[in-house]
């Protein structure tokens, strides 16, 4: 029976290993425990031992080449055994195998504090080098957690590995669990996002751009795009709807939401979110609408605005805003937007920039609609003008991408008939 040799985990932080030297050639006899190869991990060059008896039938990763953890790197088998099926597996596209018998991090209920000397060492000072350490894993590599903290974590379904212990030697203690429980759960925003999405791997260059921009500009590197929009037809449409049915109360902002959703559908790269290792493209436009409330602001979300009619959007926004002001929104009603709009027009603000609400990729800052002299066909005419500024997360949206979206947005808003064609 052929035995697979896979890239072993030889250091706690190792993600891939490079073959420095094969210590056996194809065709050599190997026995269990015998050194098979030297592997360069991220930390040191380590010897890899054979885990089976037989003949080294095939070397798949040559000296100098690297392989991720778990990848098949060689095959040990009987001299005449057919190993084609094992090799076929290796040539199949990078399917990650489960890691080989690695010591699992201890489960919460198994974790117990080690015997402590009568005076435990002082708490390890947090330094930059600690950042790479996995949560709750002490320097010894063992998870240290107080019995109480272990039980609390088990009761509340917390993964101890996600928690950084603040006790001596990194011990996870009660206060760490309490803090973790008061933090919003990671991924909660995603879970409540109603829109479907597809995840595409962030390319190497995208990741590098992301890292560089973050270090230069802060956690979310903003840039801003501003455009003037002729609102005559949008205002006209609003009046026409009102004339049609006085009960239909449509605001300019509702029209802006609808046009934004329509434009987003034509520009998926703007309806997206940077997620470190990948970029998430949303299928629908879940529009967050910033609402000023007594002690701050909140952004209730109009789900699937691209699929809703203007009147639906109008009544939904009205209802959400009302409940936002009386603080009766449920968390899933104000989290998980894919794009946000902030409108300060009613305060007479002509132009402003808004701060992106992560993990959204952009936010549109909408100014007041005012009558202005503009030049049309070499004539100065008075038009209802409105200025919008879009803040973009440069990690996911580039200048041209954002500009093209704004172009579409302007086109639709200046000719709202596009909404129906």
């Amino acid at each position, binding site marked *: 029976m052929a035995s697979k040799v896979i890239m072993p985990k030889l250091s706690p932080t190792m993600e891939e290993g490079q073959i420095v030297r094969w210590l056996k050639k194809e065709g050599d006899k190997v026995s269990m425990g015998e050194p098979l190869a030297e592997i360069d991990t991220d930390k040191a060059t380590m010897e890899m031992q054979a885990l089976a008896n037989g003949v080294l039938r095939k070397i798949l990763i040559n000296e100098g080449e690297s392989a991720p953890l778990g990848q098949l790197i060689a095959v040990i088998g009987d001299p005449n055994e057919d190993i084609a099926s094992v090799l076929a597996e290796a040539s199949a596209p990078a399917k990650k195998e489960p890691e080989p018998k690695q010591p699992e991090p201890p489960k919460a209920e198994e974790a117990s*504090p080690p015997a*402590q000397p*009568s*005076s*435990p060492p*002082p*708490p390890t000072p947090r330094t930059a080098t600690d950042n790479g350490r996995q949560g709750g894993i002490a320097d010894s590599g063992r998870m240290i957690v*107080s*019995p*109480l*903290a*272990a*039980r609390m974590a088990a009761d509340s379904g917390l993964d101890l590995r996600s928690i950084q212990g*603040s*006790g*001596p030697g990194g011990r996870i*203690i*009660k*206060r760490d669990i309490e803090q973790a429980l008061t933090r919003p759960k990671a991924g909660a925003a995603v879970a409540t996002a109603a829109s479907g999405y597809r995840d595409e791997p962030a390319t190497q260059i995208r990741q590098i751009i992301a890292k560089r921009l973050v270090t230069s500009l802060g956690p979310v590197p903003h840039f801003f795009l501003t455009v003037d929009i002729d609102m005559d037809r949008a205002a006209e449409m609003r009046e026409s709807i009102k004339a049609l049915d006085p009960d239909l109360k449509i605001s300019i902002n509702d029209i802006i939401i609808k046009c934004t959703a329509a434009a987003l559908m034509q520009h998926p790269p703007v309806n997206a979110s940077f997620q470190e290792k990948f970029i998430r493209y949303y299928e629908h436009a879940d529009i967050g609408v910033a609402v000023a409330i007594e002690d701050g602001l909140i952004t209730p979300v109009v789900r699937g605005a691209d699929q809703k009619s203007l009147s639906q959007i109008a009544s939904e926004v009205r209802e959400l805003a009302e409940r936002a002001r009386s603080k009766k929104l449920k968390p899933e009603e104000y989290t998980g937007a894919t794009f946000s709009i902030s409108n300060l027009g009613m305060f007479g603000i002509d132009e402003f920039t808004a701060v992106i609400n992560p993990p959204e990729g952009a936010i549109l800052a909408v100014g007041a609609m005012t009558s202005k002299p503009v030049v049309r066909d070499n004539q100065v005419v008075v038009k209802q003008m409105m200025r919008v500024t879009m803040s973009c997360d440069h990690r996911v949206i580039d200048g041209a991408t954002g500009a093209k979206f704004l172009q579409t947005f302007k086109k639709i808003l200046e000719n709202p008939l596009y909404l129906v064609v």
Partner: protein
Amino acid sequence: MPTITIREALNQAIREELARDERVFIMGEEVAEYDGAYKVTRGLLHEFGNKRVIDTPITELGFAGLGVGAAMAGLRPIVEFMTFNFSILATDQIINSAAKMLYMSGGQFNIPIVFRGPGGSALQVSSQHSQALESWYAYFPGLKVVMPSTPADAKGLLKSSIRDDDPVIFIEQERMYGLKGEVPDDPDFTIPLGVADIKREGTDCTIVARSLMVPLALEAAAKLQEQGVSCEVIDPRTIRPLDIDTIIESVKKTNRVVLAEESHPICGVNAEISHEIMERAFDYLDAPVKRVSGADVPMPYAKNLEQLAVPDLEKIIAAVREVAYLD
């Protein structure tokens, strides 16, 4: 309620029990003519006469044995050791006779006897006269071990001990005889053996303390309150039987424990309490149980070394801060 010293509270307890039950008598070195080495038996000879209040020769093993025999014959002796350091001479009678008689006689002979006297650390009397022996006696099935920390507890517990049908080791702290407190003057006031007392309620850390450690723990708790740590101070009062339930309930609430005692740490009473906590409240502990004990050395005579050998306020505070993860 009158405010009296522990010395007076003990005197009241003995006087009331001598008056209440004519089978009760007290004997020991200097308890009669001299009113007791620590004046606990003051006035008793005059009041009850020399058949009830008896001076003995300096023969601890002898008069301890006399007491056991008297108890077997139906009397209720109180045997005073001038200090518990000298009880070491009497341990054969205490451990092999008093503690085991009920068991070995197939239930025929109860031994209703109280061995009492001062124990624990004293000031600058050196190794042989300054030590805590409660873990010795608490070790043996058949003995009850009582250690009061207030005048009211001293009176109520001593009366219960005298009325108890089993041998009781009643250890008074040598440095605490002058400690004052309110004591009920009701002659029927007693405190049952085996019931701990919560001396101060708190939420962040439990300090289990007995005898001399109780006032220190309370002082530490007051200081720690100013530092934002709320301590619960529990005095078991009786080492055997131990009211572990009260301690466990407290630990489940506070999740952290400091155990303070004067005695040496090895095989001490707190080693036992620590084990019980681990076994019964393991899932409630947020920090290892911390002991503050006397040093693992014979008590030094030199004042500076003596101070280092006995737990003090700072050591208790430091221990609480450690288990509360404040430092």
